[in-house]
């Protein structure tokens, strides 16, 4: 059964076409990740599904209904930290329970269950301003886990979290996901997207590829990736590395570069020597498996995080 069905969806702001005739189907119970860089249209698409924005043309159906008529099924977590920092975690959840129409006693019972589910029972009566980024995000996810939620739409939920908090958070999402709960994760982080059963890559308002994460990597044709961490990053360094990379494409990362080549064994020492020659020290060099960021780069020549 289709949980979300998007047909020919277009969104324009003036002359700027943010989404271009997007088609997308997500089945009930599926964990789908939509991955793309800033400005690719992924947040716009999610917010139209959550009935926060409207489409210029095309159609979205949530369990066969228009998004405005399906709001009771949708748990939408926007990118911003929307919980009130001067209320406690419990008070925030009680507020959302009230907005969903629960009576006080029902709300108290459900809120206690949710707090225990997200591991915040002990900190429930602390003000949210005293929470860490990860705790606050978990609290906000709990606002989408009230009974009746069938679709969780998470917009960049791990942005700003350190790697450990990110792993914990995504672990929680997997734990709390019921069999029939459909998850749409909006992200620009490949390792987050890899947790999904299916990934859609979006660029300039179009879904350019869509498949299971491993199949996306296989079909990209990428075999070997050399991940290099360097002391400096500059155009000169990137140019030096491009001589060793397939189609002269080099992906810039936070700490260095990624180079794509067939014969890793031969190329690696040459890379180190070449960088040395231009005065750039290599702090780490390793052969790694291709990531979804590499697949995106292969398809668009753009860094997904940039």
């Amino acid at each position: 059964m289709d949980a979300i069905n998007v047909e020919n969806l277009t969104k324009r702001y003036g002359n700027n076409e943010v989404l271009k005739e997007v088609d997308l189907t997500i089945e009930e119970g599926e964990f789908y990740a939509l991955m793309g860089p800033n400005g690719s249209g992924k947040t716009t698409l999610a917010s139209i599904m959550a009935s926060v924005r409207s489409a210029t043309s095309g159609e979205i159906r949530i369990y066969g209904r228009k998004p405005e008529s399906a709001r009771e099924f949708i748990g939408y977590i926007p990118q911003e930290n929307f919980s009130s920092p001067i209320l406690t975690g419990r008070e925030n959840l009680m507020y959302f329970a009230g907005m969903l129409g629960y009576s006080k006693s029902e709300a108290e019972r459900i809120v206690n269950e949710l707090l225990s589910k997200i591991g915040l029972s002990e900190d429930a009566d602390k003000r949210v301003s005293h929470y860490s980024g990860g705790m606050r995000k978990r609290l906000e996810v709990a606002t989408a886990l009230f009974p009746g939620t069938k679709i969780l739409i998470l917009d960049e939920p791990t942005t700003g979290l350190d790697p450990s908090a990110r792993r914990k958070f995504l672990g929680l999402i997997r734990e709390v996901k019921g069999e029939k709960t459909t998850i749409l994760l909006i992200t620009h982080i490949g390792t987050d997207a890899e947790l999904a059963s299916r990934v859609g890559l979006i660029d300039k308002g179009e879904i350019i590829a869509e498949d299971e994460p491993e199949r996306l990597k296989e079909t990209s044709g990428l075999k070997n990736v050399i991940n290099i961490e360097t002391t400096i990053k500059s155009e000169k360094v990137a140019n030096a590395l491009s001589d060793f990379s397939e189609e002269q494409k080099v992906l810039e990362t936070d700490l260095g570069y990624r180079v794509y080549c067939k014969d890793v064994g031969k190329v690696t020492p040459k890379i180190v020597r070449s960088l040395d020659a231009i005065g750039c020290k290599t702090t780490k060099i390793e052969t790694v498996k291709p990531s979804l960021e590499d697949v995106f780069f292969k398809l668009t020549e753009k860094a997904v995080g940039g």
Partner: protein
Amino acid sequence: MSLLGQVSATLNKTIKEFLRQKTVLFWTIAWPIIWVLIGSFSFTGNVPDEMIPYTRGSITISMMSFALMTAGMANLPGNIAEDRERGLLSKLMSMPVRPWRDSIGRILALLAFSSLAAVLVILVGFVCGARFSCTMTGVLESIGFLLLTSFASAGLGMLIGTFIKHVHGAIMTGVGISVVTASISGVMAPYASLPELLQNFARIYPISSVNSSITYLLAGEKYAGYIPLTTSQTTLTTIISILLFAAGLIAYSRFCWRKE
């Protein structure tokens, strides 16, 4: 979906936020109280002894009006702008929430908080020696007029909160409008000392008109500066207050909750 659930959830959240924010407490409670203290002891030097308690009474009434003005015009838009800025309104738009229920919750919270501020200002006024000459009917009529002040301020506050997107911008605009209009309309300065143009403004601006009506009822005509309880004046004040409130409510429900 329970109507009371959404209204009372918003009421609870908003009142807690008002009570826990230092800027809100300062501008709505501490600032008017400071002026009651200063006014009661500094501005009564040339006043005959028998008039001092009533002069203090009229200062207390003015500061009570000012408290209600800042509550509506600064705290309410600050709260709306903050909820929008941190994405809460987007979150609520994705839920089965009706904007008017959220509005009612916010306004009830404002009324509750304004009442608390008014009571505290009056108590401090009494402690400072303020006295009033009034009947029970006068007190009840004054409460009705205070409600009009709250509605007019809430209307202006919702307009500010709707059109000024940033929290500090919304708060400072509200505080600025409160301070300036209170100064030029006879809330903070005696009506009789205003030039004719501003006296006309004071009669049209519902908050100063209400302030004069309450002063007239609780302290007497001498302190009000004119007789504001005429049918035409009261009707004008009521209509403008309701229009401001309606304009604010419509703007908030339409524009803050509008899909892009």
